[in-house]
């Protein structure tokens, strides 16, 4: 039953990623991103508890794992969205006319087809890795690794097609979630300091991006990516 729950949560994360992709408004995207992070944290907690009870890792390592999950939720579901919400308020996105129509250059049905192909591709690509002889992987890894690949790929696609700067910001966050997902599904004896280091990197990157967002809006009066290629005094 525990592994059923993990599989269901992993598929739920894929579905939430697709929902983030088809959303047009940055607020909704952020709310779904928070949901995704919380589900990912729950998934990490389940994996940690299951590994400790089956004896895959020791209690101290399990606590380490759980601590990383809690810190991740605290940073990515609370601190980063709060900063972005503040930036949105600061540049007054709701009042700017270019906020409304589309967040991505590709239309929604086409994006869904692309996401669908990416998910299939990630399952196809990861399959030979999972059955390769010399490495024996945990059963959780074989179940969850393709899903994490799919999320990184969809995040990459979102970053490539984003029309506004904040679209790329959210794509970066989604990709980071995918990478964290890959780490929780493969390596259970991760030293906490490494993960906290990665998390801090992302936090710093997001903060710089948020400051950039405000600065871009101040000097160009728009955050549309395609208008940023004109040089301006």
């Amino acid at each position, binding site marked *: *039953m525990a*592994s*059923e729950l993990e*599989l*269901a949560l*992993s*598929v*739920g994360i*894929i*579905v939430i990623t*697709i*929902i983030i992709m*088809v959303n047009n408004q940055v607020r909704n995207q952020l709310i779904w991103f928070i949901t995704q992070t919380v589900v990912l944290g729950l998934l990490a907690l389940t994996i940690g508890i299951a590994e400790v009870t089956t004896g895959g890792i020791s209690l101290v390592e399990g606590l380490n794992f759980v601590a990383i999950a809690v810190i991740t939720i605290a940073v990515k579901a609370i601190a980063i969205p709060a900063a972005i919400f503040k930036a949105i308020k600061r540049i007054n996105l709701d009042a700017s006319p270019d906020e409304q129509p589309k967040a991505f250059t590709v239309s*929604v*049905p086409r994006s*869904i*087809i692309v*996401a*669908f192909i990416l*998910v*299939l591709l990630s*399952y*196809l690509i990861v*399959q030979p890795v999972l059955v390769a002889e010399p490495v024996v992987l945990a059963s959780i890894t074989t*179940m969850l690794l*393709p*899903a994490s690949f799919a999320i990184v790929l969809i995040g990459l696609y979102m970053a490539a097609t984003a029309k506004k700067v904040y679209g790329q910001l959210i794509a970066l966050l989604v990709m980071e979630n995918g990478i964290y997902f890959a780490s929780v599904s493969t390596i259970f004896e991760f030293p906490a300091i490494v993960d906290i280091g990665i998390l801090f990197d992302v936090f710093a990157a997001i903060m710089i991006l948020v400051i950039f967002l405000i600065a871009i809006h101040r000097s160009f009066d728009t955050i549309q990516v395609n208008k940023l290629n004109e040089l301006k005094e």
Partner: protein
Amino acid sequence: MDAESAIFGLIQGAALLFLSPLVIGIVRKCKATFQSRRGASIIQPYYELAKQFSKGQVISRQASWIFRVAPYVCMTCVVLAVTMIPVFITASFDYFGNILVLVSLMAMYRFFMALSALDTGSSFGGMGSSREVMISAIMEPTMFLSIFAMAAITQTTFLSGIAEAIQSQASNLLHPSLYLAFFAFFIVMLGENARFPFDNPTTHLELTMVHEAMILEYSGKSLGLMEYSSWTKLTIFLALLVNMFFPWGIATSISLWGIVSGICAFLGKIIVLAIVIALLESSISKFRLFKLPALSWIAFCLAFMAVILSFL
């Protein structure tokens, strides 16, 4: 066929018929709570049914026999369908058909409902049935695909067989496509049962109503039958969702302890789903009609993904 399964099938069908107003009551109560209203008691739908069954009815002179027959046809469809659903034990009365028969029963239900709405010639009925048929046309492929995914994983199309296969050999059947099909089927459930974001089940505003527009001409006993059958249809879909995709706790053999835990697990799962529906209905608004194909497209892609992944 053995007698025990038949008896359990009938008992489970009766239980679903009895529970369906309660499920609606729970959804309404939760919705009221989320919207900071007090809301009616959760047994209010039973009172509504009792009131409607004790009233006489008014039938338009323009109406033909289809209008009179349709409530009974709809009720027969759901009564046949409920006996096939495994509720607390995997044995059920599904000798006469598998899940494809269930889908056809639901299609017949919808066909007669749309026909009866057209029959009186009111403009609301025609509008409602045209919308309903459009929604069902874009939902039905998804429903079939998610069922095919289940059939490909469990190698059977019988409902009791699906529930039993997933419950008894869970570790072999762990497959991401099971849960992809779950999400697709959840969106199908919302569309088929006229819930948000496809239809607003509480509105009587002519611009937005779909299901309500179709039963607008009915009154008294016929209205009661129509509403009761649509509530039971929602309960059927919820039972399918919880017992096909998450058959945790369902009894696979006849024992007192298994049946008791099966009943508790079923009630728990249904209540969780009812709360999820209420949460959804309080947090999002109804979509524009022309935005619905995008949503059904997501569901279709999820179900298609499930089918392809189940062969990988």
